[in-house]
């Protein structure tokens, strides 16, 4: 290595560690990835704060903390923020950071488009939050925004909470579509020599499947929202029953996107679990091909299940039965994944560092959420618990206990790669236990409430439901507090943490072969891939013999 080259590399590293780049219009997929992740985490904190106010109101049966319009605004904004400004864009950020590194590309296929898709989000998010300042407040019809309730505008202002809600969501949708085009193109065309489809990490497979779903299904939500806006502000009657419209059509259009949206959120989380489990159990991912194909299988099946959200919505019997059957089919590919994770852990050499704790915790909680999911697909049972806290509990087992836990696993796992520093292990473990236990207290309690018939979205309830509500609320306050050690750890370690080596976990995968943090173009030269993924058991490639130096591994 010449003197000039090492100077250039040193300069590059200096640039990579300059915090100001994260506030600039960069086209580097890694900078954009970090921008996404940090911004969405702020929204996660905001959404969590709203949830804690909701839980505080539900400590007592009476309505005594916030008035009813505000309560309705709170749960509407909580759901909207968590789905559209936390999980989906966080996954976009993580995928942005990792996909080019994992497939051996220098950047995304369309770097400028990538930057634009990110920069749509901050204004859209701020716009959404600004509706708290309107005289009539935020949207109050829930994150589903079902008409006719969403079309009722008390006070008759043209610019109202619902209007702002629709406009922000359309903007966020445009950003997602741009991102999806970029991801699908990148994964299809930008893979390094030798990186065949069946050498791609499962994370890349799952991002590919999730982004295909975005392309196929998101236009339906965008259409529904535009028609809703026309009804709301311009006098059309697409969904108005007093005119010639039909509010049920909105539900079909809405769920045609918003059920697959659950998998757009969950697939990358499954991908994270499939990366972390093998690394910390020192086993190849068991049944790699079936797990990879199961990602596509989930994507395909989930397109045909949307009516199970509408079993009670004047849905004819034939539709109830058809969609009961298709909804249950999702259990097959997801079952394949869960079994494969378990088999990977079987007879392994477990290292229970923080990422592994979060990944195993997430996997176990997913099995619980999956079991209640199959119950909800069974129409006769769903008719009883539909719109009750049973659904809220099930849903949060998926979006919090599985997806958000997996996201934390990802943050800890790739933190050394992204920042070039190690996080503090003790604080990480504290964060895990402070998350895992309260998350189960909070969301488990919702299941008995729902079975007993407590409806979701009510601001006051019958006294018989108070016991479990108090437990859920106390759990949620602890859960809120659990983010404090996380923030302290991440900020502190980013600034002062010990320097990380290139591959602290002795993991396979191309992203670990480059420096931490990676240089501007990711790899000093584009790698040639000539081995299967997850080679933990193969002594030829094992890092044990080859130390953690990336060079010697090629």
């Amino acid at each position: 290595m010449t003197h000039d080259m090492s100077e250039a590399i040193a300069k590059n590293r200096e640039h990579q560690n300059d915090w100001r780049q994260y506030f600039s219009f960069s086209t580097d997929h890694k900078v954009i990835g970090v921008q996404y992740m940090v911004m969405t985490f702020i929204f996660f904190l905001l959404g969590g704060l709203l949830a804690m106010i909701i839980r505080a109101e539900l400590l007592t049966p009476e309505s005594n903390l916030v008035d009813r319009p505000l309560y309705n605004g709170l749960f509407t904004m909580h759901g909207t923020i968590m789905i559209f400004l936390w999980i989906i864009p966080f996954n976009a950020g993580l995928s942005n950071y990792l996909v080019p590194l994992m497939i051996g590309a220098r950047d995304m296929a369309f770097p400028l488009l990538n930057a634009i898709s990110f920069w749509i989000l901050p204004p859209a998010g701020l716009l959404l939050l600004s509706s708290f300042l309107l005289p009539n407040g935020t949207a109050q019809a829930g994150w589903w925004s079902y008409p006719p309730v969403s079309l009722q505008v008390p006070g008759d202002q043209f610019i109202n909470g619902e209007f702002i809600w629709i406009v922000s969501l359309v903007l966020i949708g445009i950003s997602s579509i741009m991102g999806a085009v970029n991801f699908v193109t990148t994964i299809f065309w930008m893979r390094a020599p030798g990186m065949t489809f069946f050498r791609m990490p499962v994370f890349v497979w799952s991002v590919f499947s999730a982004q295909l779903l975005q392309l196929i299904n998101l236009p339906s939500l965008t259409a529904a929202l535009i028609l809703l806006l026309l009804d709301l502000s311009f006098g059309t009657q697409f969904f108005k029953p007093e005119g010639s419209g039909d509010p049920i059509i909105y539900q079909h259009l809405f769920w045609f996107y918003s059920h697959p949206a659950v998998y757009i959120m969950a697939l990358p989380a499954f991908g994270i679990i499939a990366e972390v489990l093998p690394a910390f159990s020192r086993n190849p991912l068991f049944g790699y091909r079936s797990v990879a194909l199961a990602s596509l299988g989930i994507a395909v099946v989930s397109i045909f299940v949307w009516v199970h959200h509408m079993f009670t919505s004047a849905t004819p019997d034939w539709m109830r039965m058809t969609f009961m059957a298709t909804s249950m089919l999702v259990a097959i590919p997801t079952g394949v994944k869960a079994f494969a994770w378990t088999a990977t852990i079987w007879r392994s050499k477990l290292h229970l560092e923080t990422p592994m704790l979060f990944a195993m915790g997430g996997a176990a909680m997913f099995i619980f959420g999956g079991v209640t999911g199959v119950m909800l697909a069974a129409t006769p049972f769903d008719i009883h618990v539909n719109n009750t806290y049973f659904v809220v509990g099930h849903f949060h087992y998926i979006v919090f206990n599985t997806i958000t836990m997996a996201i934390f696993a990802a943050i800890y796992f790739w933190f050394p790669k992204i920042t070039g520093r190690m996080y503090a292990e003790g604080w990480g473990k504290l964060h895990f236990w402070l998350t895992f236990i309260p998350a189960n207290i909070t969301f488990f309690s919702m299941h008995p409430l729902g079975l007993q018939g407590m409806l979701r979205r009510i601001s006051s309830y019958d006294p018989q439901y108070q016991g479990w509500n108090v437990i859920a609320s106390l759990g949620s306050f602890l859960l809120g507090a659990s983010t404090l050690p996380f923030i302290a750890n991440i900020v502190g370690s980013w600034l002062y943490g010990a320097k990380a080596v290139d591959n602290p976990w002795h993991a396979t995968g191309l992203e670990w072969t480059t420096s931490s943090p990676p240089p501007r173009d990711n790899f000093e030269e584009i790698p040639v891939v000539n081995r299967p993924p997850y080679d933990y058991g193969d002594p030829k490639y094992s890092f044990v013999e080859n130390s953690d130096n990336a060079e010697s591994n090629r």
Partner: protein
Amino acid sequence: MFSFFEYVLIAFYVAGLLIVSRWIGQQAFSWMPPQATAEAQRVDDLFSFLVSIGAFILLGLVGVIVYAIAFHRASPEDYSEGHPSRGNGKLEILWTATPTLLVVWIALQSFNIYQQLDILGLNQIVHLHTPLESAPAYAATVSDVPKPASETIDVFVKQWDWSFRYPNNVTSKELHLPINRSTRLNMQAQDVIHGFYVPEFRLKQDIVPGRKIDIVLTPIRPGKYRLKDSQFSGTYFALMEADVYVESLDKYNQWLAQTVSSETANDKNQAVAENIQPPKTLFKSGWHTITPPQPAIANQRKINNDT
């Protein structure tokens, strides 16, 4: 892959799981509210079945994970592999076939029970071939041959108020149902989508404005229940409840006769009361709300002569 001894251990594990999950499934009946309709019994049977299977899968997989945590920990510096096995065709076929069979079993069981419920009448399935010819959206609500019922009650629902009209034209804010008789509820919503839901009945049906929707149910347990609005219906959603009485036919007829002859009694509509005087809350947004319609006909017990 396994030794004989391990097969025996696994067999014991599975047998233990079967016993435990069956027991949990039996407990599931007590997690539900009392069964007040014939339909509720079927739904609870299905729930118990689902809980048994769910418990088996959950405990089975989590058990393996916990076992691994207990017995397969590596020392901090040991990065050698656990087992180099990348896959096992037989095992993968087995665990794809298992959820497939379970799903088929669950789906058949659910279909079977759904048929027994016969809430809207399965005869509507014949509409499958006509969605392009006639108004398809109404297939759910109009059935060619209405399911027979011994009693018919009209349910009117609007923001945030329930009212019920009985065969003798009495209108009340209470729902009275005779026990052990199938009763048809003809439901109509005025403004937004509402939902008919009594947890003890296990039945729920959205009521969509512009459509006539009916369900048939058979109460079997006398008592007082609460009817709730299951579909979010705006600001005072939480207040939208009504009392439901399941009583003997004699008592029911007696109540009907009494209500005809009694003076109109004012029932307090909570949403209206709260709109005038909101409860004291720590934070007040001051945001506007839709004003609930003032108490009118629906708010009084009255003989309705207009039909």
